[in-house]
């Protein structure tokens, strides 16, 4: 392989991996800290993309739409936690799977009622809508690079929030022993509501960021959901650091899988998952 092309492919892999991290980080947060298997996570990715589509039209500005969309997602997340999720803590995973699968169906139907079943596009923000030439035939869209930068910033932001702040300390404590944290006088209900809303907001944000380079279409979340679970399992359940490493590994494996072994490109990431689980059943950064 030509060295320049090789480097471009590495860039492709990292860029895809960072976007995967953004989606999966919310899932690992909810899964790891609250112990909830949230199958509806992909639906929020989809809702985010549709919100970006509508709000950009309404506001006329992508960044404004992004800000409004995140606020909306947080509000929806808190309402949802209060309505249904809080009854599931400590229950068997089967109940959670059933309920959140039901949510997928509900959100698909809402999407169909509100937005219809057509494919939509979101324009790339004008300031970033140009490409940098890499070779004489290939260029790289600046928006893609900006998106990667945003994903990285969010990764650091999450690390800081969870490891360095008081709120993060409470969240970590809450994930280990819910009852103890509660008896120390911390409102664990509110804490969980915040974490759930944050997780959903991350998924919606990922959908909104991906909307301009992807398209906005029915069922777009289901694909993302599966690969997000792969990221969470490889990285170790509940570990944000693990999710980052796993997402990058999957991004690179998927990219080079398509290029080097196209016959089995579809299964490369699953082979990677199987290999990691054989080596460390709890995931790379998972607690044994």
């Amino acid at each position, binding site marked *: 392989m030509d060295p320049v092309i090789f480097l471009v492919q590495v860039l492709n892999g990292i860029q895809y991996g960072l976007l995967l991290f953004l989606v999966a980080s919310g899932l690992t947060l909810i899964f790891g800290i609250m112990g909830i298997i949230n199958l509806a996570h992909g639906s929020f990715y989809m809702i985010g993309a549709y919100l970006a589509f509508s709000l950009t039209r309404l506001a006329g500005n992508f960044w404004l739409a992004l800000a409004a969309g995140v606020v909306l997602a947080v509000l929806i997340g808190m309402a949802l936690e209060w309505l249904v999720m809080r009854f599931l803590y400590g229950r068997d995973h089967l109940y959670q799977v059933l309920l959140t699968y039901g949510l997928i169906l509900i959100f698909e139907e809402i999407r169909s009622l509100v937005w219809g079943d057509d494919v939509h596009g979101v324009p790339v923000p004008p300031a970033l809508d140009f490409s940098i030439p890499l070779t004489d035939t290939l260029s790289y869209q600046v928006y893609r690079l900006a998106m990667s930068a945003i994903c990285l910033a969010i990764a650091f932001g999450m690390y800081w929030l969870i490891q360095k702040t008081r709120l993060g300390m409470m969240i970590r404590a809450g994930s280990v022993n819910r009852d103890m944290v509660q008896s120390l006088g911390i409102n664990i209900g509110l804490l969980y509501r915040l974490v759930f809303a944050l997780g959903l907001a991350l998924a919606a944000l990922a959908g909104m960021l991906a909307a301009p380079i992807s398209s906005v279409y029915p069922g777009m979340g289901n694909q993302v959901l599966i690969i997000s679970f792969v990221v969470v399992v490889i990285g170790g359940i509940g570990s944000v650091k693990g999710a980052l490493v796993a997402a990058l590994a999957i991004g690179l494996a998927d990219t080079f899988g398509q*290029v080097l072994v196209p016959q089995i490109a579809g299964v490369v990431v699953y082979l990677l998952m199987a290999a990691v689980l054989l080596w460390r059943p709890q995931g790379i950064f998972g607690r044994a």
Partner: protein
Amino acid sequence: MKRSDRLVSRRRFLQGVGGLALTASPLAAPFVIAQPARIKVGLMLPYTGTYASLGNAITNAFKLYVAEKGGKLGGREIEYVVLDDESEPAKAVDNASRLVNRDKVDVLVGTVHSGVQMGMVKVSRESGVLSIIPNAGAGAATGPLCAPNIFRTSFTNWQTIHALGKVMMEKGHKTAAWISWKYAAGEEMFGGFKEGYEKVGGRIVKELWLPFPNVEFQALLTEIAAARPDATACFFAGGGAVKFVKDYAAAGLKSKIPLFGNGFLTDGTLQAQGASAQGVFTTLHYADSLEIPKDKEFRLSYAKTYKLQPDVYAVQGYDAAQLLDIGLKAVKGDARATKAIIQAMEGVTVDSPRGKWKMSRAHNPIQDSYLRQVVGEQNKYVAVAWKALEDPALGCKMLA
């Protein structure tokens, strides 16, 4: 639309019950006039999921034609039994059997998804029910699995892309890269393209596939840039088509390695694709701005009824109703005379909005393939890429 259908059928049911009550009373008996039985049309199409808009377009246009004929085909009133197939192949056989055996439909119309179609074809072949396919392009349905009672008013996958190679060669593109999803339809499209392109001396220098319905194209676009073909040919549809065309343009490839495909690449997706699709050439059996009076009439009528612009799927649905009308007229609406209906539908020429087409011996349209170019939000007609293109229908026993 589904809901209103259900309401209508509930109302009809109540009317029926009311009618029974009336006939039961001796006084009312003399006033009952025998009505000829309605013809039951089973519409098995996707009304939810990715293909919902296609299912709706087909249904709209089918009902539009019937409404234009005063709600009757062959002099008989039409009754619809509508079923959402969800584009779910696993449920296809059960759903189709339900329509045929429980609802006793006279005609089975559907569907969009080729996998579901295979299940329907199985039921059609076993039950012998008259069947019209308004979209799904799986070659087998009018190839190895062709049957006297199965007709298609749409296309075969092969047919949509066979003319593309010739077009690309005429534009001086001697080498090409191919990219598509790796699944049955993608492979049939590739077969159709390869055959047509290599016949005129073209060479495919790079074959790129990604798992369906993956939409992460960046790695393969980089491969295309590295391979430097004269042009790229592809098959994508729906959300994947939008993303592919946008990514192709954003990677700076569009101006250096022109992009070609069959019409699904840019049909119903132009609003979402925006500037990135401008100028792209595609082939298909329908186009915007065709200079055909029948098409103008159809578009006007469709737009007036549904406040929507019709697309190629609507045309195929409209033709399904036209074809059925031809068959039923020949037997004066006697839906049980399946043999005579089939005879009337065989070898018929349908005056379609896409231009006149003839039914092949394998029961698939022999139709012109148009070259179209994206201008604004239209797939503008450029030229006839291939006159009267007929699917080879390999393996169809009705050809012998």
